C-alpha cells in the first residue's frame, strides 16, 4: 500500500499487478516476494533494509532484494546491501534503471512455473553451431576462423 505513485510500476507491463496490504514491497507468487531498495535511499537510511527484512520473517521461499543502482560511487553502499542481504537469506539482484528493476519483477512472475531448460545444458542439434561452440573454446579462434577451418579441413 505504500507503493502508490511508485514510478517503477509503470515499467511493469508484462504482468498484471494490484495494490494490497502486504509486508514486502512486492509479492510475486505463492512463495516469492521482493523488497526494493535504491542505493541512494540506502545511503540516507542505512538501517532501513535491515528492518524491512526482519519484517518479512520466514514466510517466503524466495526473497529478492531488488537493488536499484542509481549512484556513481557504488562500492561502499553496495557492499553493505550485499552483506545485509546475504546474511539474512535474501537474494540480491541489481538493476541499473527502473526499467531493469521492473523487468526483473516481471520476469520472475512470468517465469514462475517455467522449467530451467533454457539455462541448462542443451544439445543444439545444428552441427555448425556445435562445431563453432567447440572450436571457439580455444583462444583466438573466432567465428570466421571456424568457417575457414571448416571449409579447408572438411
Amino acid at each position, binding site marked *: 500500500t505504500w507503493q502508490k505513485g511508485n514510478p517503477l510500476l509503470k515499467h511493469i*507491463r*508484462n504482468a498484471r499487478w494490484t495494490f494490497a496490504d502486504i509486508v514486502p514491497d512486492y509479492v510475486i507468487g505463492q*512463495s*516469492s516476494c521482493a523488497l526494493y531498495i535504491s542505493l541512494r535511499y540506502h545511503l540516507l537510511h542505512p538501517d532501513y533494509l535491515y528492518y524491512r527484512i526482519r519484517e518479512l520473517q520466514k514466510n517466503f*521461499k*524466495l526473497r529478492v532484494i531488488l*537493488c536499484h*543502482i542509481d549512484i556513481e560511487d*557504488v*562500492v*561502499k553502499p*553496495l*557492499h*553493505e546491501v*550485499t*552483506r545485509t*542481504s*546475504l546474511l539474512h537469506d*535474501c*537474494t*540480491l*539482484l*541489481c538493476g*541499473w*534503471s527502473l*526499467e*531493469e528493476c521492473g*523487468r*526483473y519483477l*516481471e*520476469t*520472475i512472475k*512470468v*517465469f*514462475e512455473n*517455467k522449467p*530451467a531448460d*533454457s*539455462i*541448462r*545444458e*542443451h544439445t543444439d542439434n545444428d*552441427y*555448425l553451431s556445435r*562445431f563453432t*561452440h*567447440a*572450436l571457439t*573454446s*580455444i*583462444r583466438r579462434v573466432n567465428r*570466421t576462423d*571456424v*568457417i*575457414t*577451418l*571448416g*571449409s579447408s*579441413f*572438411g
Partner: protein
Amino acid sequence: MLPFEEQAVADLLEDPNGGLLVVSSGIPLASLAATLLLHLHHQSTSSSGGGGGGCFLILSAPDALKDQIRRRLVESQLLQVHDVASDVPAAHRRALYSSGEGAALFLTPRVLAADLLTAHLLPSRVQALLLLAAHRSSDTSADAFIARLLRQHRLLPVYAFSDRPHAMVAGFAKAERTMKSLYIRRLHLWPRFHVLAAADLERSPPEVVDVRVPMTHPMVGIQAAILDAMDACLKELRRTYKVDVEDLTIDKGLFKSFDEIVRRQLDPIWHTLGKKTKQLVADLRTLRKLLDYLGRYDAVTYLKYLDTLRVSEGVRSVWMLAESSHKIFELAKRRVYQIVRPDGTRVSIAKGTPTKKRKVTPSSSKKGKETENEDSAHNKDDAQKVNAEASYLLVEVLEEAPKWKVLRELLQEIAEEQRKGDGVVHEDENNECGIVLVACKDERSCLQLQECISRSPQQVMREEWEKYLLGKAELFGLHKKKKKRSQQPKGFGILDGEFPTGSNENENAGPVSISKLETNALLAAASGISNLTKEADAKEDSVPSCGKKGSVKGKGKRVPKKTLTKRQASKRKNRSTTENDSCQGTDVEASGKTDEQSDINVSKVSAEDAPAPASTPDNAEDLIDAKMLPPVQFYALDSDQHVLDIWKPSVIIVYHPDMTFVREIEVYKAENPSKKLRVYFLFYEESSEVQKFESSIRRENEAFESLIRQKSLMMIPVDQSGRCIGPTPANEPEPLLSQNSLTRKAGGRKPTGKDMQVIVDMREFMSSLPNVLHQKGIRIIPVTLEVGDYVLSPLICVERKSIADLYQSFASGRLYNQVETMIRYYKIPVLLIEFSQDKSFSFQSASEVGDDVSPTNIISKLSLLVLHFPRLRIVWSRSLHATADIFMSLKSNQDEPDENKAMRVGVPSEDGVVEDDVRAENYNTSAIEFLRRLPGVTDSNYRAVMDGCNSLAELALLPVERLAELMGSQKGARTLKEFLDAKCPSMIS
C-alpha cells in the same frame, strides 16, 4: 655478444634490486638474459664459496625465447636448465627446486604462485627472478604476485625484460607502475638509436638492396578501396563523439594496437554504445586484416577469404554494404576470373580458338601470360566447353602476385653471381656463400613460394583455383541436398532468393541476374575439373604408366614447367658439387635426385599432381620438400625461431618486411662482421606495406622517447636501506571491516588475531583475485576444488564469474550445474558476479531493455536461476578490490575453512582421498575446455573420458563401444562419435 649488450647487462647488475630493461624489438633478449644468468651464477659461486646456491626462476618466457636461452646456457655448461611445465607432478617439481646448485628453471606463473603458497618452494632457495615479458605485468598480474611473495621474505633481485616499448607506454605511467609492482628501482632503456647500440650495429652494415615491386592495377584498386572503407569507418566512429579523435588515424589503424586504443576509450561506456558503433570497431579490425592479406596471399586465396568473410560477417557489418566494399569484391574477383557473355548468341567454342577469346578480355594480362595461355589451353578448353552450354564464358585470369616474379629473377641473379664468384675465389669463399634465406610472414606463404620456385607460379595458381572451384562444387552438392536453403552464401554481388535448378534454366538468360550466371559458370567449371580429376584418377588406377588422356593433359600443362625445373635443377647441381662439404650435403643430393626424377618422367608427375586438388593436399610432404631444397631456405617470421645463427645465410631476401627481423639481421651482421651479407627488401610500391613498415619504426621511436621522458620524472619509493617498497596501498580504500569495527567492536580492536584464510581453486590462479586477496593480507591456500572456486568458510562457497564467463556459462548450461552442486554441498552457496574495474558497471543500457520479456536476455536467465535456486546468494562486485573487501567482511564472523574437507567435496567417492598431487595441473586446461564442449560429454563423464585416452586426437579414433564404456551411456557415445566424424558443411549458414 656485442659490446652494447655487455654494457646493458653490466648496468642491470649494478642494482641489487634488479631492474627493468626495455630494448628495441629484434635485439636478442635471449642472449641478454643468458648472459645475465651466467653473471649472476658466477657472482654467487664466487662470493659464497659455491655454497649459497638456489635457483633462478624464469617466468613467462615464450617457447622460442626459452629454447634460445636454454641453448646458450647449455653451451656454457655452468648452469643446469630445467623446463618446469605445468604438467610436471608436484613431487618432481619439489625435487627440482631443492636440487638447484644454481639451476635455471622456466616456470609458468600459475604453478609458481601455487608452489610458493604451499611452500613447495621456499623463497630462500631462490636467487633471482627473471621476467621476460614485463610489458604484460601489472600490479594485479601473477608476475607481481610472485614478486611480492618472494620479496616479502627476503631481498632478491628481480630482473624484468621487454622488447615491446610501445606496450610499455600504453596507459598512464605504465612503466612506473609496473616497476613498483615488481619492486624494481631502475629502468634501463636500450633503443636502437642508443649511441652505443647504433655504433655497434652500424660498424659494418650489410649491403642493402631495396626492390620496389609495382602492384597490379586490381591490387592498387583494392588497396584504395579498403583504405576508403577504413576512412569511412573512422569518420563514422568520430561522428559518435565518444572517442578521442586525435589517436584515430589511418596510420595507426594499420596496427593491432589500434584496437586497444579504441577499446580503452570505449570500454567504460561500452554498454551505452549502439550496435552500430560496436560493429564499426569490429569492421575496422576486419579491414585491417584484409589490407594485410592483400600483400600476403595469392589472388585465389584472397578471394576465398573474402567469400568466407561474407558468409560469417554477412549483413551485420557496415562496410560490407558500402560502395567501396563492392569494389573490393569486384576487383578481387577480377584477379581470379571473369565472366564474358558472347553477345547473346550461343557460340559453341571450337578447340582452336580459345586464345583469341582470352585476348578480348580486358584483363590485366602480363608479359608472362602468353606462355601460360598456351600451356593451359587444353584445360581451359574443357572448362569452356562446359560453360558454352550455359551460354556465357568463364575466363580465368589467375593473376600472380607480382613479387613472385621478382623473387624468381632475384634468385636467378644471385645464382648467377655466386657461380661467377665460385669460379674466381674457389677456396676461401665457397663455404660461406651458401644459403639464400627468404623470409616471409607465415608458414603458408613459405610453402607457396617454395612451390612457385620449384614449379611454376602458374602451376600454383592453377592448383589454388582448382581447389577453389572444387570447394564450390562441393557446396553446390550440399545445397542440392537442402533445397530449402537459399543460395546466398555462394552468391556473388546481388543476392536473390531464387534457386537455380540447373543450367538449362539459363537458356533464357534475359531475366536471370548476372550473379546467378556467375555462380553457374563457376559450378560448371568446377564440375568440369572434378570430372577431369576423376577421370585422371580412374586412369591412374587402371594404367599406372599414364594413359593417353593423362599424357595429353600433361603435355599441355607441363611444358614451361619442364624447362624451368630443368634450369633450376642444373643450377642446383652446379651448386651441390661445390657445397657438399656443408652440413646439408646429403639433403642437396636428395633434392637433386627428386628434381631429376621429375624431369625424366614429366608425364608421371602430372598424373600424380592432377588428383591432388581433389584430395586435401599433403602439406607435410611439401614441408619436407621445402626443407630439402638448399640453397634457398624459407623462413616464416611467425615461427619465431632465430635461424640466422644456424643457417648463416649470405643473402637474405626479406619478402615481407618486418622491423624485428631487420634488427635481427643487423645484430647478426654485427656479430659476424667478417661475413659478407646482402639483404634484399621486397616492397610493393606505394603500398600499405611500406607505410606499415615505416610507421612501425616511427612508433617504436616515439615509444622510447616517451619512456625516456617518463624515466626522468619517475618516482619510486625506497626505504632506508635502499630497497624498493613496492606498490603503496594508499590509493586503495581502507577495508570496510576496520571502519565497522570502530563502531561495533569496543575500542576498534583488531577483529581477529589470527590470519584469515581462503581456499582457492588452482584454476583460479589464472585470474588476479588470489593476488588481490593476498595483498589484503589473507592467507591463500591453493588446492583443486571440485565444487566452487573459493571456500571462505565451512558454510560459504563462492563461484566466481566475470561478465564474459557469466554469459558463456549461462549459454552452455554449466552455471546451472555448478550452482546445483554448490547448493548440494554448502549451506551458503554464493554466485559472485564480478565486473571489471575499467569496464562499465552494468549489463546493458536502459534502451537495450526491450519491451517484452525475452528468454535470451541476461535478466531472464538470472531470474530463472534465482527462481530455481532460492537458496543461491548473489554478490555483485564492482571490481577485484571490491570483491576482496566483500570476502573479508563475509568471513569476519565465520569459522576458517578446512582445506582437506573442501578438497573432498564433490569428488566421486570411489576416488577416495585426493593425493597430495594436484590433479588439475596434470591436464591441459584448454583441451579440457574443448572436450567439455563436445556434444555428449558432460560434467559427470568428462573425467572418465580423459582417463581413457591420451589426447583429443586419440579420442577421435576411439570406436563407439569404447566410448560408450567410458562415458557410461550409449546415446552420449553415439552423439559424440557422429559429431566427430561428421563432414563440415560450414559454408551454408
